[in-house]
């Protein structure tokens, strides 16, 4: 549910290749939840 994921093979929150949107970078430390865990995408 929460916490910083540590596994190096973890997926990214958004597949940039599939996204039709211009992504706003914002704060790279903003948390995202995926599955049972939440993590900092920039730490992947």
């Amino acid at each position, binding site marked *: *549910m*929460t*916490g*910083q994921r540590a596994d190096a093979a973890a*997926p*990214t*929150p*958004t*597949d*940039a*290749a*599939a*996204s*039709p*949107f*211009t*992504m*706003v970078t*914002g*704060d790279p430390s*903003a*948390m*995202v*939840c*995926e*599955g*049972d*865990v*939440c993590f900092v*995408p920039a730490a992947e």
Partner: protein
Amino acid sequence: MRSHAFHPTVTSPIKIDIWSDIACPWCYIGKRHLEAGIDALGADAPDVEIEYHSFELSPDTPLDFEGSTVEYLADRKGMPVERVEQMLQHVTGVAANAGLDYHFEKVAHTKTLKAHELLHFAKANGKQLELKERLLKAYFVEGGRVNRIDELVGYAAEVGLDADEARAALESGSFASEVQADIAQAGAYGINGVPFFVIDGKYGISGAQPAEVFSQAISQVAGERAA
């Protein structure tokens, strides 16, 4: 539906689509940050129209897990209990900074599909934003069982929805296809994590970003429309 003062250069509300799950602590925090970002624009803020879309973070969550959040994460993820407790304290602190009183010791882990069905029912009846707030509060603050029809009907009634109609919608599953359509759309967009915000169908924002990120994105869209 959140509305602000009409901006003379913007002729229609700026649409904000949000993929989110009830069982997502950063979705509730991100919701508060978005609201703060909109409020920060003040009287000149453009009209915005917010729509929530369904996302099921963990489809294999049991319907009625009876243990605590710590037990849930420690058992499922194999994480040390001390580490889980540290993480929950961190999230609770960030939530408090956003004005949210999280109580992970009360959280009742469950599948959220029925809650999403009710959110679609609420959308059809003009009460989606009110119900989204109510369900998130129920889950993270009150320890509500957001998979149980009786409790969901109670939340629906609290926000002004017809209880009998809400029950009928939940028991018949009449909005289940809308939930799955949202989830499929997220997949098509490459969205793997939430919260995920789409501003005016153009800009994607991932995660519980600070309020100013939302302010800037909305202002940019308003400026582009006016150009």
